[in-house]
């Protein structure tokens, strides 16, 4: 039995996750991760083949920070707005000192002329831990079902 408080806090964590990304608050989004976090985006194709190649692999929070600095200062990418819909949150149980959590996501993307399309959909496979200031993602694996990425992959999913 998962405590109601923990369940609600995890729901809030996912809501903040989508809201920060959609508002381009990458620096706030970063703070939803534990210091010893692992964040990766993986094509489902490789998951099914048992192959380790990712689209993005941040093995610690510094690598996430580096990616955000690079996006802000050293990359050029499509001008776009994202909208994440995160649902079917499943708290699968205790994992170590945290919880194993899965959720589905759909992410639409609109360009700066107002034309939009379905950009990505898939599953988050995560481990959530509770720190003094609330729940954090210790691991977040984004498994992309439409793994042929349309256009390019710049801001996180």
């Amino acid at each position: 039995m998962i405590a109601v408080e923990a369940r609600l806090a995890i729901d809030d964590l996912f809501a903040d996750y989508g809201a920060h990304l959609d508002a381009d608050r990458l620096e706030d989004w970063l703070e939803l991760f534990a210091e010893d976090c692992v964040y990766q985006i993986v094509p489902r194709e490789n998951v099914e083949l048992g192959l380790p190649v990712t689209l993005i692999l941040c093995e610690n929070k510094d690598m996430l920070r580096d990616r955000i600095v690079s996006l802000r200062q050293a990359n050029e990418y499509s001008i776009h707005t994202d909208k994440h819909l995160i649902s079917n949150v499943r708290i699968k149980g205790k994992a170590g000192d945290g919880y194993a959590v899965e959720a589905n996501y759909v992410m639409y993307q609109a360009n700066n002329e107002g034309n939009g399309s379905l950009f990505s959909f898939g599953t988050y496979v995560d481990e959530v831990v509770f720190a003094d200031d609330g729940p954090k993602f210790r691991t977040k694996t984004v498994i992309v079902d439409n793994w042929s990425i349309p256009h390019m992959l710049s801001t996180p999913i």
Partner: protein
Amino acid sequence: MSINVEWQRSDYSRIPYWLYHDPDVYAREQDLIFRGPTWSYLCLEAEMPEPGDFRTTWVGDTPVLVSRDRDGSVHAVVNRCAHRGAAVCRHTHGNTKVHTCIYHRWSYDLTGKLIGIPFQRGIRGEGGMDEDFDKSEHGLQCLRVACYKGIVFGSFSQTTEPIEDYLGPMMCGHISRLMCKPLRVLGYQRQRIHGNWKLYLENLRDTYHASLLHEFLVTFGLDRATQKGGVEMDARHRHNLTYAHAGSDSDADAKEAYGDQQLNSDKLTLLDPRLLEFRQEYDDDRNLAISTMFPNAAFQQLNNSLATRQIQPKGIDAFDLIWTYFGYADDDQDMTDHRLRQLNLFGPGGLVSMEDAEAIEIAHKASRNEPPDATTVVEVGGKGEISDRAYRVNDVPIRGFWSYYAELMDIEPEGAVR
């Protein structure tokens, strides 16, 4: 169908925009380039090591099925049933003894020979096919196959030159360096870019853009135009190699050269610099060597990130780009982890490569329906002769691409530079 191109220059320093947007040009490319006297990249042998292993791919718009037969030989056939034209194999990869079309269950052996037709003689003497139907005349269309250094190439031409001659010493040298040991395939990245496929082939031949578009390279000193490097081409200038040497310039050199481009290198450093660590693996100290093979592939080393890239045109307005990453079979776990970490540099979300898709899409979008005399300008590194450059600020291999393209498409200008 013929195409009339009013070239403004015989050295391909002006390319009309309409060539990227014309359906007749695209149809002719299928006939004269992808099904013409070229060799195309199909896959790696390491992806299909066992008898019965197969993979499906595309050469231009043509679906291709590559299989390893029981005797170990590799065969490539058009993945289209001889009966009603359906794709025989619907999977991207797998292992089988026989390829069977689901539509009417016609079956083919691993070389593409037609071996089974259900109810060929009908049922109880009724139905089926006439007696004169000869199965041996209805196999899958075969491509010529060449396996060179672990790479599988295919050609629709029975008469084109052998693969080593097609690649030439420059490409053979680069491929031999990259494919120096047995491989271990690490996985795939795919992306669909909404632009004409030729824009990507040009992008791969344009050293000029690298350190300007890809600010990450310059900002973190991974690759700068001030480094020792350049471009090499084969004798026909259809393939090219871009190379650079790590640590061959100083931050001061770069700062002076990039002066007004606002180089960030003195204020930005990575918190986790392992991303940029270069472990020398070959006899030379090149940390960047990317070769591009006409018409559909590139072979990449940047630091310790190794990959092939395959280009699959999907009509005038799009192409798929497939990145196949690999290491060597004798890599230890630490080296594998290092390569996987450096994957962050490449692919659809690569810190170095993500901009290419955007550059291609904005170039494609802004050049539609232009009059015949509207052109690009390709003369960085000089006009006229097409030849190697031992410096980085050039896009000469783009003109090499077009010179061979024009020859195959039978649209060369008078006095064409080759």
